């Protein structure tokens, strides 16, 4: 489908739809349900240097039009992701975006250096915004100077373009975006989850064992749209947008806001077939709205309309 092809740093996408990190594991479960070759890309679960078990359960709590999670970056560690998960994913003709996480700067650098060598990893997603780990993660994502330096360090070692995943848990997200742009980022992914909490009616205590967690789902979509709308007009980096995407209509809204591709997160849990459904519906919707190519939609909400040269494949 030519009307959906997009080129971004490191990525040639046959369509701009990809499952978001943490909502798709390493693809194994979904591969039993549909052909993963249909996807534009796959953002794999966050990988840390050492294996992590993550937080105690309960790790999820439902909210109105959303969910809180505090998984805590559970993953089998760099070695097994490289030798088991990424090699398994090689059977698919889909670029992988590897989400890189850690507690210390050295961890990020080490994981980025090694994972970027994998032949199907076409880009990194630097996770400086996970709200569910005690050290690292979100600390790197809330102080502009720290985020900039980490981006710079990771860029020095990465063999593929680096997208930085921004946290919405900041006062000024444009400032954060500019900082990582200065640090040499090739793109942005946004937004990560919003910090939240739910309390149990009977015990009066938090439902999540971790107490707080990250809010995702349709409830956060307007927050993401506003942030992408603002950030996209102040940096010249392409943005992969995410937060509550459930339909082709939602995808269009993200493009209008300024995104160049869109990731689907929580909706995969509600409807495991949601990504292929959106990919099927998107060209029809595009045509209905009178567009020849999805790249024409990026940033249409901006006051002064501008097209970005690198969009069309």
């Amino acid at each position, binding site marked *: 489908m030519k009307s959906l092809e997009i080129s971004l740093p490191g990525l040639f996408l046959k369509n701009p739809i990809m499952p978001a990190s943490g909502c798709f594991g390493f693809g194994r*479960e979904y591969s039993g349900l549909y052909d993963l070759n249909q996807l534009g890309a796959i953002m794999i679960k966050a990988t840390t240097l050492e294996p992590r078990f993550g937080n105690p359960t309960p790790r999820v709590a439902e909210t109105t039009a959303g969910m809180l999670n505090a998984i805590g970056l559970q993953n089998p560690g760099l070695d097994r992701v490289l030798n088991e998960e990424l090699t398994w994913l090689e059977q698919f003709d889909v670029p992988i975006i590897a989400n890189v996480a850690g507690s210390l700067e050295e961890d990020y650098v080490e994981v980025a250096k090694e994972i970027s060598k994998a032949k199907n990893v076409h880009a990194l997603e630097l996770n400086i915004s996970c709200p569910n780990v005690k050290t690292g993660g979100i600390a790197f994502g809330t102080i502009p100077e720290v985020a900039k330096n980490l981006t710079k360090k990771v860029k020095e070692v990465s063999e593929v373009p680096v997208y930085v995943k921004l946290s919405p848990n900041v006062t000024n997200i444009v400032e954060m975006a500019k900082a990582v742009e200065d640090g040499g980022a090739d793109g942005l992914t946004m937004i990560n989850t919003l910090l939240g909490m739910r309390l149990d009616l009977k015990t009066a205590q938090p439902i999540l064992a971790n107490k707080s967690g990250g809010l995702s789902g349709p409830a956060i979509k307007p927050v993401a749209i506003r942030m992408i709308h603002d950030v996209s007009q102040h940096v010249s980096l392409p943005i992969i947008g995410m937060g509550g995407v459930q339909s082709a209509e939602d995808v269009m809204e993200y493009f209008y806001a300024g995104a160049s591709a869109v990731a689907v997160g929580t909706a995969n849990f509600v409807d495991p077939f949601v990504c292929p459904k959106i990919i099927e519906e998107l060209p029809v919707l595009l045509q209905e709205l009178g567009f020849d190519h999805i790249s024409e939609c990026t940033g249409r909400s901006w006051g002064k309309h501008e097209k970005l040269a690198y969009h069309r494949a």
Partner: protein
Amino acid sequence: MIKQELCTVVSQSQIAKDIYELTLSGELVREMNEPGQFVHLKTGGEFGPLLRRPISISSISKDTSEFTMIYRAEGKGTKLLSESSSGDFVDVLGPLGNGFPVEASEQGDTVLLVGGGIGVPPLYELSKRLTAAGFTVTHILGFQNKEAVFYEEYFNSLGETYIATADGSYGTAGFVTDVIANEGVKFDILYACGPTPMLRALETSYGKNKKVYLSLEERMGCGIGACFACVCHTADDPTGYTYKKVCSDGPVFKAGEVVL
């Protein structure tokens, strides 16, 4: 094979306090091959809660392409589900998980099924299959009180059935474990489903010298193993990195396999 389908409500009725029996028909019944599996239901349509609700399958009828669930209408999602009636559609994902291994019962084994509360339903299909295969099956079913008891006569028709209630308002006063001890129930293999403290007590007492299979309950996100919401530690590495997912590795585990 996991399918997603809009299944049709055949019937729905309240069978005990807050307990509903719901029968759906759909093609995905063809995929239901073991007792103890579950389905993930979207309740209340577009304006209902976001996430699906995992509910165990209590009986399967391949002849009519129907399956039945028994659930407690407690939260918003299950209350909405209890409002659906004959002819309505329910979005079903399933069947999910690994059920009870019927084949673990060997010729001559005496089988004991123990259920607690809303853990009782999946034992019904299991009991039907075991009795059809010629096994003698004893049931011990625990409930909070008399109003919460359901399916006693159904289980009675399949084998000896004891009821225990926590408040003593019906059957034996106390827990299912009290019944096993007081009645001197003999068995070679035990299948159980219910609250974690009950499963833990059964594992402690019988996990070492009997064949014991336990079906766990945990909050779930996706139900298919992708979101890592329902993980538990394995017994051979209780504080380490190895894990099992209740939804896709379970919900049924052999005693001693995971940390309860």
